[in-house]
Each structure stands twice: as structure tokens, then as C-alpha cells.
């Protein structure tokens, strides 16, 4: 160590004479970056305590002992638009091109619990995802896609219980018992209040729905990931990498505590919790973030929540490359950005990956753009060799120092959240929302002032740029068709049965029973998503955002 120190001083003297470029050397999140990292920066590093082996505590190096040598990550492109028919075609297209899992994007009315013919749905049907009103639509969405063969991820939060029940009932129609279903519902309501802001009910009943899902899944849908605790949206709302890490894990701890408070054994539901992170453009910061996340989760689950099952300690995660890092200017550059971000996710040990399409900053992706995005993953997996070695950056002075730094900074946030009375209290105090808004504002300022360079936006601009990529447009006719469909359904189904089942759900919601079996009965009777949510809305009320501006 002494010898290194002496040599370092010598180098510093020499290096000090050289002039650096006139920019702030910091990560994309604003953390200062040294010019060089040496053993000095990780002097207390303890291999067994800080790294261990892949598949072993504290899992810094990965959740499986052989990682991608055993099985590559799942290539799971997020897709859905227009109606169930169109999306069903897109899924078949993606499966044909070699995608290995499905990921459903719902439209805004579905996400907010409105049927397609609700006045608030006007102009939004099928725009940013697929419109799903009832079991009829869900059956169409998965027509000729055997649910015992694919795993499906569904991006649904406030109405997650309803969409999940629709999926379970679709399985029943296909003759697939719920025990065989595999997949994930995002079901992360806390991050909705914090960042994504597609809430319906207030936090307390929302948390009850989630613990109801934990309980039902443990008995009847054991292979299902019941929550995908999501940092992705926290980052997209403008947070730093540290905020994404800290707020996401804090949400995770809150779900664990809610489960324990609901009387469940931590090892009964914790193995089914999964995570969802963003992969932004700062390569090393992102890799360090994933490594720190695994280590923090394992330590907390073991030490604080007393989990005994090793599976409860594993932080498994899906990654999506950063939508907010893409630019509308020179959109083809987004292919390159996405490729670097995808590589960071893989070097960080992700279990599943969505690579953004170059045109997502402009509209929903075209088939061509989606194919390039998927090919980006396939090139990464089969040509670059990065999947051959587990956690190849371990031991890098920079990566280890940055991983430690991430953990330290996250711990500071955990203390602050604790001091404020926990996640729900901090949401109520607008703490997260304000921290993220500040970070977003600083980031935009840095770009405006050219303290941060964005190629094609504030530097290397093409003054004569003309957009020459194809854009997917959604025909307004789709909305009309979907509205007709849901109205026809309401005319033709057994409406007496529907109102009976909705009444039973209302009674359950007013009491303390698990609501999932009642929701399942409603969807089997072809009650619409909007009707089920409206029933719950009448019991639980709606969340109102506190003004932060």
C-alpha cells in the first residue's frame, strides 16, 4: 500500500501539469468522478463480505451461480397498441423474431380504470398501449398464445388486481390452471404516488389490494411475480441514479413490512417480489447501481426482516433502457444509446431486458424499429461475448468504489425516509416528488447551459435535419370500434349475474376479506374493468395529489 501511495504521488505531480478539458467531470446523476481509481479507493474492501460469489450472499455478483452461462436474460419487449387484435398480431410477430417473453402495454384508460366508452377515455383509446375492457378482450389478446408456454409481464398498477384476474381467467379458458401461469404484474402503487402518477385509490386500500394479491398468489398462482418494484418511472420522472436506487428499495421494504403486518410470513411472499430498473446512459454508474441494489436488498432482508429462505434475499430485476435519454433529434442515434444502456444492464446482471426503439421519443414503435431494438439484444447476447463471464467488472477499483458509494448514499436516504415516518408519510409530505422534481430541473438546466452534452440536441446539431424515419400512427377508427365492442358486450352478457358479482365485491371491499376471489368472479361474468374499478372507487374513494408547485 505504501509503495502504491508513493507511486501515486509521483503520478499526481506529473499529471498535475496536464490541463484537463473544461467540463465538470461527474456522473450523469451529478456525482463527482475522480480521474483515477486505485486500491486506495477500496481499502476496506472485503471480498467475502462485499462481493461473495455469484448466487451467494450478498449477491453483489449476481443472483445465479452460473448467470448467463446457464440461461440468457429474457428478451422482453414492452408492446401493445390499438386493440387486442392488433396487439395479438404484434406479440406473434415478436415471438416469431425470437423474443422469449411477452410484456403488455395498456392504454391510459385501462391504466386508469376507465372503460373505452367513458367520457374521460375520449382520444386516449389504444394510443399508448392496448385497450382492454373485459375478459373478451383479454381472450383475444392471447389468442393462439398458450399461457403455459410463455411468461407475461403486465404493466398495470392501480387496477393490477383486475388485470391479473383477467389473465387468470383467460388461462382458465385455455385450460391452463393458475398454478402453471408465469409472469409478472407491475403492481407497484407506491411509485405511482412518487413518480408515475397513475393512481386511482388512496394508499391504504391500494396496499390492501397488494397484500391480498400476495396472499392469493402464494396459494393459487405460486410462480407469479406479484410486484415488480419499479425504479424505472422514478428515473424517467427525473431522479438521479441514487434516488432511483434508494426510493425503489425503500418501496420494496414498505411492501415487505405491509406483508408482515398483514400476518404473512416474509418467506411466503418475498421470493415472488421482483424489481424493475432503468438503464440510463452513464455506463458505470448504472452497473454500480444494480450491484449495490442486490447487496442492499440481501443485507436488509436477512438482517432486518429475518428472511430465512435464500430466495427471499435475491433481488431479481427487469431492466428497460432509458426512454428519457433518447432524443427526438437525429433519432437513429437512439439505436446507439440503447445499445450502450443494454450492455450496462447485462454487465449489471439483469434477468430480463427491454431495449427501446429509436422512435419511442416520437410515437409508439414501428415494426422495423422494434426489430432493430430486439436485434440489439441478440447481438449483445450472441456476438459480443459479454455474457460469457459473470460480473466481469468486479474488482475494478472504480466499479467497486462506485458500488460502495451508491450503497452509502442510498443508506442516507433510507435514514431520511425513516426520520419522516416511512414511505407513506414521506409521500404525504411530498418528499420524493420534490427531490425528483429538483433533480429533473437541475438536469434540464445543465443541458440548456451545455454543461452536459447531448449529441444532436445541444451539440453536433444538424441545422437542416429532416425527420425521415417512419412513424406509427393509430387510426381514430380504432377507438370507435373498441367503444362499439364494449357496448355490445354490455348488451349481450348476463347483466343480472354481473350486478350480483359486483355487489358481492362491494361487500368484500367494505369488510376485511381477501378481494381477489370476488374480482375473479366479476371478470368471469364479463364485468368490465371500468365497472369493477368503479365499484371499488365507490368504497375506497380516489387519491388526490397534494399541490407541489
Amino acid at each position, binding site marked *: 500500500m505504501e509503495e502504491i501511495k508513493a507511486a501515486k504521488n509521483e503520478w499526481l505531480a506529473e499529471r498535475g501539469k496536464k490541463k484537463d478539458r473544461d467540463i465538470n467531470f461527474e456522473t450523469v446523476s451529478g456525482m463527482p468522478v475522480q480521474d483515477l481509481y486505485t486500491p486506495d479507493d477500496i481499502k476496506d474492501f472485503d471480498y467475502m463480505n462485499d462481493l461473495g460469489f455469484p448466487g451467494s450472499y450478498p449477491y453483489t455478483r449476481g443472483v445465479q451461480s452460473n448467470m448467463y452461462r446457464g440461461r440468457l436474460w429474457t428478451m422482453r419487449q414492452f408492446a401493445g397498441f390499438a386493440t387486442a387484435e392488433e396487439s395479438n398480431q404484434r406479440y406473434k410477430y415478436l415471438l416469431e423474431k425470437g423474443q422469449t417473453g411477452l410484456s403488455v402495454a395498456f392504454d*391510459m*384508460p385501462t*391504466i*386508469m380504470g*376507465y372503460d373505452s366508452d367513458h367520457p*374521460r*377515455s*375520449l*382520444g*386516449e383509446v389504444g*394510443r*399508448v398501449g392496448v385497450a382492454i375492457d373485459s375478459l373478451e378482450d383479454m381472450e383475444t389478446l392471447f389468442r393462439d398464445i398458450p399461457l403455459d408456454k410463455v411468461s407475461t409481464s403486465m404493466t398495470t398498477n392501480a387496477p393490477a388486481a383486475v388485470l391479473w384476474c383477467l389473465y387468470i381467467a383467460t388461462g382458465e379458458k385455455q385450460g391452463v390452471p393458475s398454478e402453471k401461469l408465469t409472469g409478472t404484474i407491475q403492481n407497484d402503487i407506491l411509485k*405511482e404516488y412518487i413518480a*408515475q*402518477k*397513475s*393512481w386511482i385509490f388512496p394508499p391504504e386500500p391500494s396496499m390492501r389490494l397488494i397484500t391480498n394479491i400476495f396472499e392469493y398468489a402464494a396459494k393459487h398462482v405460486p410462480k407469479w411475480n406479484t410486484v415488480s418494484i419499479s425504479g424505472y418511472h422514478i428515473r*424517467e*420522472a*427525473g431522479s438521479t441514479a441514487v434516488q432511483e436506487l434508494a426510493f425503489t428499495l425503500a418501496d420494496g421494504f414498505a411492501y415487505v413490512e405491509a406483508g408482515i403486518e398483514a400476518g404473512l410470513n416474509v418467506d411466503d411472499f418475498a421470493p415472488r417480489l421482483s424489481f424493475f430498473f432503468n438503464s440510463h446512459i452513464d455506463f458505470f454508474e448504472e452497473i454500480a447501481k444494480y450491484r449495490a441494489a442486490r447487496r442492499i436488498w440481501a443485507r436488509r432482508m436477512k438482517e432486518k426482516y429475518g428472511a430465512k429462505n435464500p430466495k427471499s434475499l435475491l433481488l431479481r430485476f427487469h431492466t428497460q433502457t432509458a426512454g*428519457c435519454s433518447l*432524443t*427526438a*433529434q437525429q433519432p437513429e442515434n437512439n439505436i446507439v444509446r440503447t445499445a450502450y444502456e443494454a450492455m450496462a444492464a447485462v454487465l449489471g446482471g439483469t434477468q430480463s431486458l427491454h431495449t427501446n426503439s429509436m422512435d419511442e*421519443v*416520437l*410515437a*409508439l414503435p414501428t415494426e422495423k424499429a422494434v426489430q432493430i431494438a430486439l436485434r440489439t439484444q441478440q447481438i449483445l447476447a450472441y456476438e459480443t461475448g459479454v455474457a460469457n463471464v459473470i460480473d466481469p467488472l468486479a474488482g475494478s477499483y472504480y466499479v467497486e468504489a462506485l458500488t460502495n458509494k451508491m450503497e452509502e448514499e442510498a443508506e442516507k436516504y433510507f435514514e431520511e425516509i425513516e426520520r419522516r415516518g416511512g414511505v407513506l408519510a414521506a409521500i404525504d409530505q411530498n418528499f420524493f416528488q420534490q427531490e425528483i*422534481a429538483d433533480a*429533473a*430541473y437541475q438536469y*434540464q*438546466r445543465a*443541458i*440548456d447551459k451545455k454543461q452536459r452534452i*447531448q449529441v444532436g*440536441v*445541444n451539440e453536433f446539431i444538424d441545422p437542416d435535419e429532416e*425527420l425521415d424515419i417512419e*412513424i406509427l*400512427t*393509430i387510426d*381514430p377508427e380504432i377507438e370507435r370500434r373498441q367503444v362499439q365492442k364494449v357496448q355490445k358486450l354490455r348488451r349481450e352478457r348476463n347483466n343480472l349475474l354481473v350486478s350480483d358479482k359486483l355487489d358481492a365485491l362491494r361487500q368484500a371491499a367494505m369488510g376485511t376479506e381477501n378481494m381477489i376471489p370476488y374480482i375473479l368472479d366479476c371478470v368471469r361474468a364479463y364485468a368490465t374493468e371500468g365497472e369493477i374499478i368503479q365499484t371499488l372507487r365507490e368504497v375506497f374513494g380516489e387519491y388526490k*395529489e397534494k*399541490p*407541489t*408547485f
Partner: protein
Amino acid sequence: MAKKIRVLVAKPGLDGHDRGARVIARALRDAGMEVVYTGLHQTPEQIVEAAIQEDVDIVGLSILSGAHMTLFPRVCELLKENGADDIIVMGGGTIPEADVKALKEGGYAAEIFTPGTTIETIVEWIHSNTKSS
């Protein structure tokens, strides 16, 4: 002293992406304007009512959900119905170039700022398009 420019920053429709709206709201306030932010999930009716009540010079609509071709015209119609079409409507968000053109040509938006626009550009545009400055 000149009257300050008053701006309503609004999020119509169902999407929850308010990063842009908040950044702009704060930037306009820092640039010396009086800014009201409606919060999320607003109907065109709520927005127009707020705009009239707050007596604003400009309404800035932020939309990422693809519903812009429905929501911009609706806000403009309602402003007109309420005799408030002297209020300038501008917008921002994920809006394809062809739709930007259609909205401007149809008189549903005086200007649309798509991703990558600097705050300074927006501030300058507001200054040169309002009387109050």
C-alpha cells in the same frame, strides 16, 4: 411596472408524465412569470375554467399520451365558447411533426415545443407573443 405574464401550465388527459410540465412551470417562474400548475389528469373543462379564473395570458398544455388531436381542439373550442379565445394556447410533449403542423394550421395551438427545446427558447417565444411583457 409592467404587468407580469400569467401562464397556466396544464396536464390534460390521463397520462401521469409531468416531468416536462413541472420543469417548464418552474423555469417560467424563474424567468419572472406568474405560473399556475393545474396538477394531473385534468379535463379540458377544468383547464378552461382555471384559465379564466386565473386570468392568464397563456395556457401551456403538456401531453404525452397521444390524445393531443382530441384535447387541443377541445380546449380551444371551450375557450371560444367562453369568450376567452384571446388566451394563447401553446403546447409541448411527444407530438409527431405532422400533428404539430395540423394543430398549428388548424389554429389549435400557437406553438408546440417538442423534446429538446431549451427553456430560453420557450421564454423568448412567450415574451414576443404576449402583450403584457
